[in-house]
């Protein structure tokens, strides 16, 4: 990549004042991305950040790269057009749980289905922030907000399960409080050929403060979460003493020695789906890390390949030949 070693994190910061609430998890994610870009020597002129609408979607304004802040829920469709027209661009889509799972649900699943070669970062704070605190499609059942004074009655989406159901080829989860973990996941996502879906649990300090503390706060995280690391044993616990093994259709807690090795590359996404469903089981840890990473055709490449094939087979199109084709006749 160009400009290697000459660019620093600061070079990826735009001159715009960042306008998120003080303490918002978005700051940490922004900083982690800027650092990641500098660390891998990304060329800012080749990078495009695309977003929809919501707090997270202001992200492109703060990156000193190309950026397109589009309309609510539709960023995946814009990104699809951008990548199809220029597959060389390094495209990052930043979205939130409302933008991606609610108004943009349709585009979200079709982006994953097409496997456009790009990265999709979904900040999940389980709440609508920019519209001031209404529940989102990932809010747990019973969540009380201004639009659900008696508690929500709709069952939430599990973003990881949804992404797997849509045939996502790279599905991962990370945490806004852990820069190192984010850097690991960003690197793996960036390396992946295809749509890399990354759910980032993100704190909304105003409307859903510390919603994830029961599972990911420093003092409980080791017990309540597990990192899915491809090729490594599924181990967790304060002393790394516990493990997970898959028996039939069940995930069971076992000793560290008996733990299964995590394989994110199985042909079927069933193991990853099983892992994603642990979120709902209070006796099992919530998984972070890489659920799935498999290879598949990328639409953006294939759509251009078809053009090359057509040109190779039929020769480059000639406008006159096109217009003057079919059954022509002369009038003198």
């Amino acid at each position: 990549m160009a400009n290697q070693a000459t660019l620093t994190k600061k070079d990826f910061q735009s001159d715009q004042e960042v306008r998120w609430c003080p303490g918002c998890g978005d700051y940490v994610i922004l900083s982690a991305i800027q650092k990641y870009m500098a660390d891998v020597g990304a060329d800012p002129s080749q990078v495009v950040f695309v977003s929809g609408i919501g707090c997270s979607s202001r992200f492109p304004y703060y990156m000193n790269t190309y950026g397109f802040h589009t309309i609510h829920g539709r960023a995946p469709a814009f990104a699809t057009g951008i990548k199809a027209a220029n597959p060389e661009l390094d495209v990052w889509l930043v979205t939130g749980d409302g933008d991606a799972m609610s108004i943009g649900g349709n585009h979200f699943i079709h982006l994953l289905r097409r496997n456009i070669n790009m990265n999709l970062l979904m900040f999940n704070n389980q709440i609508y922030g920019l519209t001031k605190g209404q529940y989102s499609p990932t809010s747990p059942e019973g969540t009380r907000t201004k639009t659900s004074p008696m508690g929500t009655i709709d069952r939430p989406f599990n973003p990881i399960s949804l992404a797997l159901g849509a045939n996502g080829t790279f599905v991962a989860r990370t945490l806004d409080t852990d820069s190192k973990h984010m850097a690991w996941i960003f690197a793996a996502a960036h390396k992946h050929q295809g749509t890399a879906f990354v759910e980032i649990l993100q704190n909304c300090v105003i409307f859903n403060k510390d919603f994830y503390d029961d599972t990911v706060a420093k003092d409980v995280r080791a017990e309540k979460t597990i990192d899915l690391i491809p090729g490594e044993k599924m181990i967790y616990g304060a002393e790394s003493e516990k493990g997970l093994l898959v028996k039939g259709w069940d995930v069971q807690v076992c000793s560290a020695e008996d733990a299964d090795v995590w394989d994110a590359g199985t042909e079927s996404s069933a193991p990853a789906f099983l892992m994603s469903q642990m979120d709902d089981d209070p006796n099992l840890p919530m998984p972070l890390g890489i659920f799935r990473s498999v290879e598949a055709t990328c639409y953006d490449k294939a759509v251009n390949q078809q053009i090359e094939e057509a040109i190779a087979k039929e020769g480059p199109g000639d406008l006159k030949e096109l217009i003057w084709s079919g059954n022509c006749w002369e009038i003198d």
Partner: protein
Amino acid sequence: MTTLKKPGSELPLEQLENVVIRFAGDSGDGMQITGNQFTLTSALVGNDLATLPDFPAEIRAPVGTRPGVSGFQLQFSSNDIHTPGDAPDVLVAMNPAALAVNLSSLKAGGIVVVNTGSFKETDLRKAKLDTNPLEDGSLDAFRVIPVDINQRVLDALSDSELSKKDKTRCKNFYTLGLMYWVYSRPLEPTMEWLGEKFAKKPELRDANRKALQSGYNAGDIHELFQGRYEVPKTDELPAGTYRNINGNQAVAMGVVAGAQLAGLRPVLGSYPITPASTILEELAGLKRFGVITMQLEDEIAAICAAIGASFTGSLGITCTSGPGMALKSEAMGLAVSAELPLLILDIQRAGPSTGMPTKVEQSDLLQAVFGRNGDTPMPVLAVSSPSDALEVTIEACRIAVEYMTPVILLSDNFIANGSEPWLLPDVAALKEFPVQFATDPEGHQTYKRDAKGSRPWVKPGTPKMAFRIGGLEKDTDGNISYEPDNHQAMTNQRHQKVLNVADTYPPTEVVGEAEGDLLVLGWGSSKGIITQASIDSCQAGRKVSRLHLRNIWPLPKDLDEILTGFKAILVPEMNMGQLTRVLRSEMPQHNFISYSKVTGQPFLVSEITDKIARILED
């Protein structure tokens, strides 16, 4: 085989100038193919022609019912003609439903060719007829040619090993052959077409060819007609090379041409919708031109992907019809706010809501000009005929890239599916309008405007030119700004930029006197009908001039002065007076008379001439 007389050799041959023929049958009877083949052959014979396909939205409505009737009307002529004709001279009715639905439009004394094989008790019941029109006197005013086409085609194909069902399906080619005999048309073009169409199914190719030939021979053997007709080739069309073209084909070519003239790659995002889908289909087959076509998950994704392509420096295009336009309107607003070029093709159909998907209407005009949130101006152009479509589509591309703006191109169902001879343009003479992308950071600002009011276009990937844009209000640098004065200034600039487009229009043309009692002002697909109605009116001693608008928004700057020359301006539209509303609000001092028709069918020439007569008599 019996020895044949040379077909028609002993029958009188009468010369005609014009014939209007309508093929009508069940949706599954192949009437569109029949009509298209008759069209192709007539074009190759050298006639001028115009067509009006008219089919139901259902792919196969219940067999034999009235809603399932599919029709194809064409006028072919040795004169320069402008319409598919008001009333058919000949109706070919393949079943009772087709007869019942179409009989009222047939000319008095016209010919009805009836497939008597489909007039059994059950057929009549399906068509909701209590009595058999062949026997109850309802055809007394017409010349009826009864032919049991069902049986004839089975007889003709008695040697074939095809199933009875497959043999019966050849009846449209038998019918076509018969009509070719009546109008002295050659069989070769259709024979050739069948050869290509059924290249991999020789048994079907041979059966259909035999049916065509048998129908042709039958004209002579069975002495169904007293004579044959000939419509000589026209000598009224300008010299040159012609081909037959429909509107959607021509728009697709216009997209390829427009992008090429701009030096850009065309990227189409689309979602199938009647009657626009064939543009997506056409362009999907033109990959060798570098055209990217994407069939997205919905109408919204389709326009968003196209805008994404424009963001990268390609020419984004989306094609749709009314309901899809409604879904796309938020994204259009973004394209206006971001100031990116985009071509939006709206092939209008009858609304509101799903309306009548296969019927024509011009009722998206106000939606195109005004139908978005905020002050969101956008140039709007209208195609007037299939042979006009290439040029207008190229013009829409030019405006889009020169003014960095989305542009709406309005066509409609009549143009999309109707066809006519097209005098092929000199491709080498098409004027290029190459895009210059901005690459120099020195003094560059994302929304710094040139003399036209247009902003620079930067391709992502260009070093040191990174920008961020979006739907939030921005300042000249492209940064978010909620400053009151800035929003006023940017709104004014976007508004003025679109008005500036009118500076590049050629002078508006009035056909006829520049002053007078009445000007007929039309837009879109009614051009041919208005042209014919004006000619007929003038011949009847009624002085009218006519003007056809290509640029719906912004309106031409010379229009106001032109209208001053007329006491009244008649505006026929297939909507409830939408252009009339725009004209009245922009140029309130003129006397506009709205003439509205929303039956899902084009105007008849006679409707316009009658209206002209009534106005001039008052």
